[in-house]
C-alpha cells in the first residue's frame, strides 16, 4: 500500500485549516466553528480510511512517504532531516483514535463563546501535532510534532480553563517540557551514537546500539515519554491539568495526549533501543502497576468529578505501562488496545462532565443527586464510560485489560493480581460517583438543569460506537496491532504454554 498522501492529508487538512482560520474575522464565530468541524470531519474520514485500508496481513510500516528536507550538509548525511511519514499496526488505531476524539472535541467546543477563533486555531494546532507524532518517522519532525501537541495546552488552559488554571497550566507545561528535555537529549545521543547522519527512524531502527549505550539512554525515552503517560511519580500534572482545562482540551489531553507518552515509549524506546528493554521494562511494569493501584485508591477519596476521572486516567495509563512492561505479545497488544480504549472512554467521560459543569458550575459530586431525572442521556452515557472503565465485558476496557493481565501473569503474577484488584477498586469509585451524583434522591437545587446539548449527544455517540465495537468484536483492532507488536524487537511470543495435544501426548 503506497498511498502516503493520505498521511500527508492528516497534517495538511488541520494544519491548513488552522492557517485559513487566521484570515477569518473573529466576529464570524460560526464560520470558524463550521470550518473546524469540516476539517475534523475530513480528517476523521481520512483516519477511518487509513485504519480500514491498512493491510494487516502484510504488517509493517505502510503508506510510506518521504520528502528530504536538509541533507548532505555538515554532519547530516543522506536523508538527514526529512519529512518521513508511515503508519504501522500500532499507529493505525491511534490515528483513528485521534480522528474520533478531535471530531468529538470540536462538537463539544461548539458552546465556547470566548475568543472562539483563537480557541479553534490552538485546538487544531494541538490536533495536528498529535497526528504528527503518530505518523512521524523522522526524529526531528517527531519531536517538533510532540512539542506542537504539548505547548498549545498552556494557552488553552490559561485562557479557557477554570479552577486554579494558572497553576495547573504552568505545572503541566513545566513537567512536560522537563520530559521533553530528556527526550531531546536522548534523540541527540542516539543520533550521535548511530553515526548515520540521519534522524530517519527507519534507519535508526536498523542500527544495533550496544547494550551499555541502550541501558544508559533508554530511561531518557522511558521517563521522558512516560511523564506524558502519567508515569508514577511524575503524574500529578495530569489530574490538576484535567481539572483546569476546558472540556475539549481535557478530552484531547486525556484521550490522545497521554497516549503519546506510551506511544513514544514504543517508538523511541522499544524500537530504537531494544537492548535497553531487558533492564528497564520490568521497572516500567512495576511503576505502571503501582500507578494502577495508587491512582484507583486516590480516586476513591476525590470529590471533584474531574479529579476522580483524572486519577482514574492515572490508574488506567498504569495498565498501559504495565502492558508494555510485560514485553510479550499479549501484554503489549493489550497495552495498545488499552490506549485506544482509554482514549475514547476518557474523552467520553470528560465530554459528559463538561456538559454538566457548564450548567451547574460545580463538579463536587457531593452536592448532586438524582441527576438522572433531569439528564437521563447524560447518565446513560456517563454510565457507559464508567462501566467501560471498570472493565465490564462487552465494552472495550475489558478486552484491553484482559490482554494486559494475561500478558502479565506469565512472569509477574503478583502484578497481574494487583491489576485485577485495581480494576475492582475502579468499581468502587465509579459506582460511588454514579450513586451519589446520578442516582439517589433528586436534589431540588438542580431543578433548572437541562439535558446535555445535541452537540454533546452527537459527540457521545461518536465515542460510544468504538467502545462497543471493540468490546464486541475486537478482531479488527487485534489483527492490526498483533502483527506490528510481533515485529517489535525483544517482544516475546507467548501463546498457550501447553496445548491439549501435548497433554494427551498426541
Amino acid at each position, binding site marked *: 500500500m503506497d498511498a502516503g498522501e493520505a498521511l500527508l492529508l492528516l497534517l495538511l487538512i488541520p494544519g491548513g485549516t488552522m492557517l485559513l482560520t487566521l484570515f477569518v474575522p473573529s466576529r464570524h464565530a460560526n464560520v470558524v466553528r463550521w470550518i473546524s468541524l469540516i476539517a475534523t470531519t475530513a480528517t476523521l474520514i481520512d483516519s477511518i480510511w487509513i485504519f480500514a485500508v491498512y493491510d494487516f496481513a502484510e504488517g509493517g510500516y505502510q503508506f510510506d512517504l518521504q520528502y528530504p528536507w536538509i541533507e548532505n550538509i555538515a554532519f547530516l548525511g543522506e536523508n538527514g532531516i526529512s519529512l518521513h511519514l508511515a503508519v504501522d499496526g500500532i499507529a493505525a488505531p491511534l490515528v483513528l483514535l485521534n480522528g474520533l476524539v478531535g471530531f468529538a472535541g470540536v462538537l463539544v467546543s461548539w458552546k465556547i463563546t470566548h475568543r472562539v477563533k483563537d480557541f479553534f486555531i490552538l485546538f487544531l494546532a494541538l490536533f495536528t501535532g498529535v497526528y504528527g507524532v503518530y505518523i512521524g518517522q523522522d526524529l526531528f519532525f517527531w519531536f517538533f510534532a510532540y512539542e506542537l501537541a504539548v505547548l498549545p495546552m498552556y494557552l488553552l488552559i490559561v485562557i479557557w480553563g477554570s479552577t486554579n488554571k494558572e497553576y495547573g497550566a504552568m505545572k503541566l507545561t513545566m513537567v512536560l517540557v522537563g520530559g521533553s528535555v530528556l527526550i531531546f537529549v536522548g534523540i541527540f545521543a542516539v543520533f550521535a551514537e548511530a553515526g548515520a547522519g540521519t534522524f530517519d527512524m527507519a534507519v535508526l531502527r536498523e542500527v544495533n546500539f550496544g547494550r551499555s549505550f541502550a541501558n544508559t539512554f533508554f530511561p531518557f525515552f522511558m521517563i521522558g515519554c512516560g511523564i506524558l503517560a502519567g508515569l508514577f511519580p511524575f503524574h500529578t500534572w495530569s489530574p490538576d491539568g484535567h481539572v483546569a482545562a476546558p472540556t475539549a482540551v481535557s478530552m484531547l489531553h486525556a484521550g490522545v495526549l497521554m497516549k503519546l507518552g506510551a506511544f513514544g515509549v514504543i517508538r523511541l524506546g522499544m524500537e530504537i533501543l531494544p537492548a535497553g528493554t531487558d533492564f528497564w521494562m520490568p521497572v516500567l511494569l512495576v511503576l505502571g502497576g503501582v500507578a494502577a493501584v495508587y491512582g484507583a485508591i486516590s480516586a476513591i477519596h476525590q470529590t471533584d468529578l474531574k479529579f476522580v476521572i483524572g486519577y482514574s486516567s492515572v490508574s488506567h495509563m498504569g495498565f498501559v505501562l504495565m502492558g508494555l512492561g510485560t514485553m510479550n505479545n499479549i501484554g503489549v497488544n493489550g497495552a495498545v488496545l488499552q490506549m485506544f480504549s482509554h482514549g475514547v472512554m476518557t474523552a467520553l467521560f470528560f465530554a459528559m462532565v463538561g456538559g454538566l459543569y457548564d450548567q451547574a458550575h460545580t463538579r463536587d459530586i457531593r452536592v448532586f443527586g438524582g441527576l438522572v431525572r433531569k439528564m437521563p442521556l447524560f447518565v446513560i452515557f456517563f454510565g457507559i464510560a464508567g462501566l467501560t472503565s471498570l472493565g465490564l465485558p462487552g465494552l472495550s476496557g475489558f478486552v484491553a485489560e484482559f490482554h494486559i493481565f494475561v500478558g502479565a501473569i506469565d512472569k509477574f503474577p503478583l502484578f*497481574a493480581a494487583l491489576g485485577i484488584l485495581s480494576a475492582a477498586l475502579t468499581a468502587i469509585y465509579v459506582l460511588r460517583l454514579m450513586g451519589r451524583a446520578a442516582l439517589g434522591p433528586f436534589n431540588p437545587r438542580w431543578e433548572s438543569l437541562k439535558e446535555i446539548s445535541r452537540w454533546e449527544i452527537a459527540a457521545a455517540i461518536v465515542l460510544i460506537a468504538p467502545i462497543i465495537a471493540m468490546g464486541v468484536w475486537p478482531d479488527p483492532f487485534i489483527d492490526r496491532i498483533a502483527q506490528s507488536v510481533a515485529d517489535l524487537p525483544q517482544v516475546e511470543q507467548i501463546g498457550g504454554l501447553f496445548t491439549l495435544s501435548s497433554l494427551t501426548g498426541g
Partner: protein
Amino acid sequence: MIWADHAWILPAIPAISFVVLFLFGRKLPRGGDFISVGAALAVFVLFFFVLESHLDWLGAGLGGIRNVGTDWINFDSFVVRLGFTVDSIAIVMVFVVSTVALMVNIYSTNYLRHHGKPEPRYWWYFAVLSLFVAAMLTLVLADNLLLMFVAWEGVGLCSFLLIGFYYERRSAVEAAKKAFVTTRLGDVGLFIGIILFWRATGSFQISDIIAAAEAGRVNDLPQVMGDGYLTLSTLMLFLGAAGKSAQVPFHVWLPDAMEGPTPVSALIHAATMVVAGVYLVARLLPVFEVTPGASNVVLAVGLTTALLAGIMALAQNDIKRVLAYSTVSQLGFMFVALGVGAVGIAMFHLLTHAFFKACLFLGSGSVIHMTEEQDARKLGGLWWRMPVTASTFIISSVALAGIPPLSGFFSKDEIFVATLDGANTVVAILLGVAAFLSALYMARLVIITFFGPPKDIAVIRRAREAAPTILIPLVFLTVLTFLVGFVAFDQVGDALGFPGGINNYVYFPEPHDFHFYNSIAAVTGTVSLLGFLTAWWFFWGRNSRRARAVREFQPRLAAVVENKFYFDEAYQWGIDRAMLPLARIVSWFDRMIVNDTGINAPADATRYAAYWLRYHVTGRIPDYALLMVVGVALAGGLAFLLRG
C-alpha cells in the same frame, strides 16, 4: 436442524428483545412488555427442542457434550472462543432459567403496575430483564471460562440495575452498589483463577482445563509455586463462586439486594444468578476433586453458610429478608453436596430450590403488592383474605422445610445420603441442624404472616387476592414444586425419556443410583416436622410469649442473632476504618509528598533563587565589573586545577 447444535439461539432471542426494548421500549405500547414475555416464552419452548436433541445423542450413545462456536479473539495461539456447550448440567440450568424467567416475566406485567397504571420506567425494567435472561443463558451454555466470565459480569450488571431499579431511594442505590462491589471482589479471584488456569493449560476451554487437571498437568509447571499452583487456581475460582452465590463471608449483599422489585428477587436472587457459583463449581467439579483440599474448603464454606444463614433467618422480620437468608442457607446445602462430590444431587437441589424459592418470593411479592407492607410483624391473618397466595406459599414452605413428598424433601434427603457416604457423621448432624433451622424459620414466617390475628387494620383492609397474572405463575410453580422431586426416581426419569433419574443423567464421573434409605428419610422427615413443631411451640398465637421469654432470657445472644452476627458492622468498620483512611492517606501522600514536595518544591526553589539573584542586577557598572573579575578568576582557577 439439530437444536442443541444451535443453542446460541436461546440467549440470542432475549438479547434481541433487549436491543429492541432499549431503543424503542419507551415508545411501544405497554412499554413493550409483550416482547420480553414473548422472548421468554420462545426460550421456554425452544428449551424442549434442545432437550430432545440432547436426549437423542445420549440415546444414540454419542456422549452428552456437544460444543459449537466460533472464535471471538484470535491471534496466533491465543484464542478465545465464542462457544456454546450443551450437556446435562447445562440442560438442568437452562430448564430452571427458562421456566422461572417466563413466570417472572408474566408476573411482572402485573406487579410493576399500580392500580393498572405502569410504574415509571416500566419499559426499562423489561429491557434489563431480557438482558439478564440473555446473559444468564450465555453463562450457562458457555463452553469456556472466559465467555462464562463475560456473562458472569453481565448478570452482575443486570442485578445491579434491577436492585437499583427504584433508584430514587438511597437505600436501593446503596444496596445495588454493595451487591456489585461485593461480588466484584469475588470476581477478582475468579478472574485470577481463570488466567492462572490459562497459564497452565493454554486454554480457556472448560473441557481442556478438566483434562489437564486430571492428567496432573496443572501442577507440572516448572516455574513458580509447584504443587500449590493447582490449589491456588482452584481456590481463586471458588472465591468467585462464593461471591456470586453469597457464601459466608460474601453473603452480606444478598439480603440487601431485596431492595429490588420482588419478581427480580425471585428470578435473580433466588433461582438463577445466585446459583451461578454452584453451577461453576459443578461444571469444574473434576478439577476440585483432583485439587487437594479444595473439596473440603467447599464443604466447610457451604456448611458454615447453611448454619449461620439459617440462624440469621430466625430473627428477621422482613418477609423478603427471611427468604433471602433462607436462600443463602440453601445455597450452602448445595455447596455441601458439591463438597462431597455429588454433582447430580447439588443440581437436583438447585432445581427443586429454584422452583419453591421462586414461588415463595413471588408469593411474598403478591402479599407486598396488595398490602403494601413487607414487615411480617404488621401482617398476620392474611390467609383468608388471600387464599391462593397463602396456600401456594405454605406448600412451598413445606417443600423448603423438607416434608415428604414435596420436592425439597427428596433433594435434601439425597444431600444427607451423599454426606453420610462421602463425609462424616458430624457434617451430617450439623447439616441436620441447618435443615431443622430451615423448617423452623419457614414455619415462623408462615405463622406470623398468614395466621394469627391481623395486627394492622389498614393492612388487612387492603389485602385482597391478586390478579390472575400474578396467581398463574404461583400455581404453576407450586405444581412444579410438587412434581419435580420425583425426577429422582429412575422410573419417572425413564418415563420422561431420560436415562433414569436425575443421578443417572447429571453425574461425574460415574452415575450414582438413587438410594432411598427409609431410615435416613425417616430421620430427615422427623427433623423437619420437629422444626415445624418448634415453630408452633414458639410462635403460634399466644405461644409467641415463649419466643419473647427466650429473648429476655439471653438478651445478648438475641442481639447477636438479630444483628446477623455483626457481619455488616464488621464490613462497615473495615470500610470506614481501613479503606477510606487508606484512600485519604494515599491522597494526602499524593498531594503533599508527590506534588507539593516533589513537583512544587523545585519550582519554588527556582522562584526563590530568582528572587535572591535579582538583587544582584543592580544596573551599576562597578558591580558588573566586579562580578566579571570574580567570574574570570573562578573560571581561570578551575581551568588551572583541571589541567594541572
